[in-house]
C-alpha cells in the first residue's frame, strides 16, 4: 500500500478502522528511510527499534478502541528537541554523543497523543543557517534536485517530508528556519506565534525569537499536528497563556471578504521574477476564491535584517555559554588549565558559523557597544513590529515571498556568510514581531519549488491554516512529489 501518498487524515482513518496497523505503517516509512536516506542525509539518528515497539503499543491502544489525535502516526523530530533515551545533537560536534535527561514538552505531548518517532533530522548546527550546510553531520540534499540545498535550518525535516520518508515532522523557526526549507522543498510549513508552542526542552538559539512548529504535506496535516503541540506550558516562562482553538474545525472558515495584504516593498528588484510570477498566480487563485487583494506597506526589511543579525547572535552568545566542556558534551583532550579547557572545548566543538555568531553576539553585548548595537537593534525591532500593526489595520492576512529565489546550489553562498543572510529578508521581520507565518507550495521555477508566505496577527494560526487549506483544495502543488521518491519501496 502506498502509505506515503496518503494524507494524515487518511492515515488516521485507516488506523482507526484497522485497515492497516501502526506497525505496517511504521515499517513502511522506516523502509523508505532505509532506501532513500543514504543519498539525502536528512536524518542524524534513526530509531527503528523504538519506533516498532511504539507502533506495537499504539496497535494495542487502537485495538482497545483508543483514539489519540496522532495514535500510530509516524513522524520525525528536528534534532533540536530533547528526547530522553535518544541522543540530541543539534547537528553539533559539541553534542554528538549527548543524550538529554528529559523530554521536551513538545515531545511529551506528541508521545501522549500516540505519535511514533522514527528519528531525529539533520539541521544547521544549533539552528544557525539557511541551507543546512552548517551541520557537523554533513549536508542534506534537496529531494527535488540533489544539486540544490534543502534550505535551513530545518533542512532535514523539510527534505524528509518532501521525499515522504515521514508523513510529518517538527521544526523550529528563529529567522525563517521552518518557512524557507518548506518553500525550497515544496512542502507546507507553519511557524506559530511566539509563545504558542512550548520551548521547554527545545535547545535555545535566540530565546526571544525561537518558536517550534510543523513541516508537513498540507495545511490540513499541519493543523492536526499543531493542535497537539500548541498550548501553555508552565515550564516555559515565555509560553503564552492563551487558549488553543480547534485548528482542524477552523480549516473550513469562509474566505469571502478576506483581505490579503501584499507588501509593495517585497516585490522589488531583490525578488526573482520567476518567484514573483508564481506568487502572483497564487494570489489570483485566492482572489477567485473570494479574497480581496490590498496593497500594503512593510518598509525597513533591511533594517530588520540588521536588527536580527545582532539580536539573534547576542542571545545565542548567552545561550551557548552553557557549553563549557564541563557540564555538557564535548571536552578537549589534555586541557592545560580551566581556561584552556573552556576555549579549546568550545572551538573544537562549535562549527565556523556558530563561532562567528557567538563572537558577533559577544561583541554586541560587550561594554561600550551594548547601546550602539544591542539596544539600537531592539529599537529597530519596535519599528518593525509597528509596521506590521499598521499593515493589519487594512488587511487580515499578509501574503508574499518566503525567499528571494528558489533553492540555490549547494556551496553557492558558503564562501560569504553575509550574502547567505539575505536569504532571510522576508522571514526575519515576522520573527522580530513574534507573528505566525506559513509557507505553502505555489508552483515551480526551473524545476525547483516556489513557496508563498502567509503572515497573520498574533494567535491567528487557525486563519492562516484555513487560507492555505482553501488554496490547497483548489490546487495540487502540495501533492506534487519529486519523481525519484514517488514509487513504493519494496
Amino acid at each position, binding site marked *: 500500500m502506498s502509505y506515503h501518498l496518503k494524507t494524515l487524515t487518511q492515515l488516521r482513518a485507516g488506523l482507526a478502522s484497522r485497515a492497516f496497523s501502526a506497525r505496517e505503517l511504521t515499517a513502511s516509512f522506516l523502509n523508505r528511510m532505509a532506501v532513500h536516506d543514504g543519498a539525502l542525509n536528512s536524518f542524524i539518528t534513526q530509531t527503528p527499534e523504538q519506533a516498532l515497539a511504539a507502533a506495537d503499543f499504539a496497535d494495542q491502544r487502537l485495538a482497545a478502541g483508543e483514539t489519540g489525535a496522532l495514535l500510530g502516526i509516524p513522524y520525525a523530530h528536528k534534532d533540536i528537541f530533547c528526547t530522553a533515551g535518544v541522543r540530541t545533537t543539534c547537528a553539533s560536534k559539541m553534542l554528538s554523543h549527548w543524550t538529554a535527561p528529559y523530554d521536551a514538552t513538545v515531545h511529551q505531548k506528541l508521545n501522549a497523543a500516540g505519535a511514533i518517532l522514527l528519528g531525529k533530522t539533520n539541521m544547521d548546527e544549533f539552528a544557525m543557517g539557511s541551507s543546512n550546510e552548517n551541520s557537523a553531520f554533513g549536508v542534506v540534499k534537496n529531494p527535488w534536485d540533489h544539486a540544490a540545498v534543502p534550505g535551513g535550518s530545518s533542512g532535514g525535516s523539510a527534505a524528509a517530508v518532501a521525499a515522504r520518508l515521514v508523513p510529518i515532522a517538527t521544526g523550529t523557526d528563529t529567522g525563517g528556519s521552518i518557512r524557507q526549507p518548506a518553500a525550497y522543498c515544496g512542502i507546507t510549513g507553519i511557524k506559530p506565534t511566539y509563545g504558542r508552542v512550548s520551548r521547554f526542552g527545545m535547545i535555545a538559539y535566540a530565546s*526571544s525569537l525561537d518558536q517550534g512548529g510543523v513541516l508537513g504535506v498540507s495545511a490540513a496535516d499541519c493543523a492536526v499536528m499543531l493542535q497537539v503541540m500548541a498550548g501553555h506550558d508552565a515550564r516555559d516562562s515565555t509560553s*503564552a497563556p492563551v487558549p488553543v482553538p480547534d485548528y482542524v474545525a477552523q480549516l473550513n472558515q469562509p474566505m469571502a471578504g478576506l483581505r490579503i495584504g501584499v507588501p509593495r516593498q517585497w516585490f522589488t528588484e531583490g525578488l526573482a521574477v520567476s518567484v514573483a510570477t508564481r506568487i502572483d498566480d497564487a494570489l489570483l487563485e485566492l482572489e477567485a476564491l473570494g479574497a480581496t487583494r490590498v496593497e500594503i506597506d512593510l518598509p525597513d526589511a533591511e533594517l530588520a535584517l540588521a536588527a536580527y543579525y545582532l539580536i539573534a547572535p547576542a542571545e545565542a552568545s548567552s545561550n551557548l555559554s552553557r557549553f563549557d566542556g564541563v557540564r555538557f558534551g564535548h571536552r578537549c583532550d589534555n586541557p592545560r*588549565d580551566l581556561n584552556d*579547557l573552556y576555549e579549546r572545548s568550545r572551538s573544537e566543538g562549535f562549527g565556523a558559523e556558530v563561532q562567528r555568531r557567538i563572537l558577533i553576539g559577544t561583541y554586541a553585548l560587550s561594554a561600550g557597544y551594548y547601546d550602539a548595537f544591542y539596544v539600537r537593534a531592539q529599537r529597530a525591532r519596535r519599528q518593525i513590529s509597528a509596521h506590521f500593526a499598521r499593515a493589519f489595520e487594512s488587511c487580515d492576512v499578509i501574503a508574499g515571498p518566503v525567499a528571494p529565489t528558489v533553492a540555490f546550489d549547494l556551496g553557492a553562498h558558503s564562501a560569504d556568510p553575509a550574502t547567505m543572510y539575505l536569504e532571510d529578508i522576508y522571514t526575519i521581520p515576522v520573527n522580530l514581531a513574534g507573528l505566525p507565518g506559513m509557507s505553502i507550495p505555489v508552483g515551480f521555477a526551473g524545476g525547483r519549488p516556489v513557496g508563498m508566505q502567509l503572515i497573520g496577527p498574533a494567535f491567528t494560526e487557525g486563519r492562516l491554516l484555513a487560507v492555505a487549506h482553501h488554496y490547497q483544495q483548489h490546487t495540487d502543488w502540495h501533492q506534487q512529489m519529486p519523481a525519484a521518491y514517488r514509487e513504493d519501496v519494496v
Partner: protein
Amino acid sequence: MSLNATQLKHVAHLSRIALDEAKIPALLNDLNAILAFAGQLQDPKLDALTPMAHPLDQSQFLRADKVTEENNRTALQRGAPAVERGLFLVPKVIE
C-alpha cells in the same frame, strides 16, 4: 563600526573561544561584512522608540510558589564529560 584584530582577540577571550592566528584575517572579513549591516541601526528615526525585548510585550507568567522539580543529579550529570562521586571534574585550578 568595524572590528580590528585586537578587539577580535578580546571578544574571543570573552567568548572563551580559542582563535587560530592564521584564520584571523578571514574571520575579520566575515564579521565586518556582518557588522556593515548594523550601520543602518544608527538611523535617528529609531531614537525615540522604546527597545523591545519580548515580541508580544508580554510580562512574565507567574506560577504558585511551590516546589515542582526534584533533585535529579545523577540523570543530569550523565551528559557531562567527566564526573566522579557526583562532582564535575575539571583540571586543577589551585596549584
